[in-house]
């Protein structure tokens, strides 16, 4: 062996390292740097100012928006976990025959291949004041006023999030469940465990890695989102992503960068905590 494994390793990893250096590390460094810069109406100039952070941390809106971001992440996480786990559980343990399992699984993944924006806007004719949902409820006489909160509300935002991201929960959980040795379930059954006891004492503990990976996906996707919130709340609600994108739209890059730095730290912190519970490389 002529070259050391370190050299060979780096040669093979070089393209990845280069892409990450150029399109992740440098940009993030630049964001950090620019977060201290100043801005005019149309341009940014190098400086070392705390203004952007000062403004950010002094505005009550910031806290509200961060709170909103966590709120969306938490609620979406809880719902996607509940739905994702149930669906994965059904597929993995109640559907017989691998062909059926895979077929049903694929059926779940198909909508994932459609444009997110289109999936999102498809809710509008459904949920609107005169949308299908309201019409149906009116026709059935369940309500006599259209429900306003179906669209352009936190409800619709979370609905869209759940719609977009549940699959990110289903996939890793299903994957982990499929690797659970079936004889463990029989052993539990043999030991007198009821279906629910088996679920709680055997399946859930063994599915934790999948749940963690799904959680990482959903939490980061929701925390970094800016477009779903804008669309589905009719611009009425905001999360941190929107704060940033609004700043960007108004050419206030340093201010956007400062917010971005805070968001990045928050997300990385959350993920670092989650990663303590799972060894991603091993669980794949």
């Amino acid at each position, binding site marked *: 062996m002529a070259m050391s494994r370190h050299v060979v390793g*780096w040669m*093979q*990893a*070089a*393209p*990845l390292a280069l*892409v*990450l250096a150029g*399109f*992740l590390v440098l*940009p*993030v460094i*630049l*964001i950090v740097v*620019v977060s201290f810069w100043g801005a005019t109406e149309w341009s940014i100039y190098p400086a070392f100012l705390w203004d952007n952070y000062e403004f950010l941390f002094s505005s009550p809106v910031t806290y509200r928006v961060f709170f909103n971001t966590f709120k969306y992440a938490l609620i979406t996480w809880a719902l996607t976990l509940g*739905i994702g786990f*149930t*669906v994965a559980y*059904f597929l993995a343990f*109640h559907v*017989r025959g691998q062909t059926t399992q895979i077929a049903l699984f*694929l*059926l*779940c993944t*198909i*909508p994932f*291949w*459609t*444009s*997110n*924006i*289109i*999936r999102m806007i*498809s809710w*509008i*004719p*459904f949920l*609107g004041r*005169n*949308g*299908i949902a309201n019409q149906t409820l009116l026709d059935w006489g369940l309500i006599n006023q259209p429900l306003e909160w179906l669209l352009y509300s936190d409800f619709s935002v979370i609905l869209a999030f759940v*719609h977009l991201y*549940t699959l990110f929960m289903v996939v890793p959980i299903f994957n982990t469940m499929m690797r659970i040795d079936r004889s463990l379930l029989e052993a539990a059954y043999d030991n007198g465990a009821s*279906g629910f006891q088996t679920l709680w004492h055997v399946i859930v503990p063994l599915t934790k890695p999948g749940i963690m990976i799904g959680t990482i996906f959903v939490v*980061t996707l929701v*925390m*970094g989102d*800016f*477009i779903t919130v804008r669309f589905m709340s009719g611009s009425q609600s905001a999360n941190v992503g929107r704060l*940033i994108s609004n700043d*960007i739209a108004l050419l206030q*890059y340093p201010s*956007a*960068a400062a917010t*971005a730095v805070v968001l990045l730290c928050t*997300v990385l912190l959350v993920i670092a905590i989650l*990663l303590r519970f799972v060894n*991603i*490389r091993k669980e*794949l």
Partner: protein
Amino acid sequence: MGKRSTSFYVLAGFFGLFLLFLYGPTITIAILSFQGPQGGLTFPMNGVSLHWFHDLFQQQAVGDIWGAFRRSLLLGLMVMVATVVVSVMAGLAFRKRFKGSGVLFYLAITSLVIPSILISLGVGLLFDQLGFKVHWSTSGFGSQLTWTLPFGLLIMFAVFNRFDKSYEEAARDQGASAWQIIWHVILPIIAPSLIGVALFGFTLSYDEFARTLLTSGSYNTLPLEIYGMTTNVTTPVIYALGTLTTLFSLMIIALFLLTVWVMGKRRSRFGSDAGKGV
């Protein structure tokens, strides 16, 4: 395991509702895309026609759907190839620990979890400060890779975790060089997974919005164009586009499954003694 339990039916019902939830909106717009020429974006249907599909192929008042489609297709293919090549190389690298591999791994994870808008913003700023022009095929391409590569890498981890090293030893034993091992043994064996990585890379790119938003320059990719349309179009033509994009995605999956199926068929041609004690 004979009779189905009650919980099976409850869960099956739940699963059905989930599918309905998943497909409901897509089906809604699929139906609405068949609106009559006078129809609007909402129910009730105002006649039934293919008008909006036809309209989609006419020039729109604003924008350039088909140009955007071509760009997205091309960009998707570029990202696909890059993702496969780079992920495989990195996957090979990560099979052995090398100095700094931990840092690189966590960078890749960061790349996966970092909010997309930061990449968009950062790359936009970077190109601006360096005096480069942003363009979908340069800055857009790179930004999308920050999203597809970690996925590709994770898939490669999964693949190599299951890869039996004795294949390589056998090949080395048979006199294959390092390159020959990769080319004649590793790549063919992991080929099905690579098709998966390719498909994934393509569609992640084809549908990527946030990371391309500030990095694509003068020409829109399809998701950006669709986004533009949501703000510039008031007719069901956008639903027709949505329906067609969905069909296009389905076609790609079908093609993929078909390939896998045909390959399987071809292989089973010679019968099998597998599992028999002979």
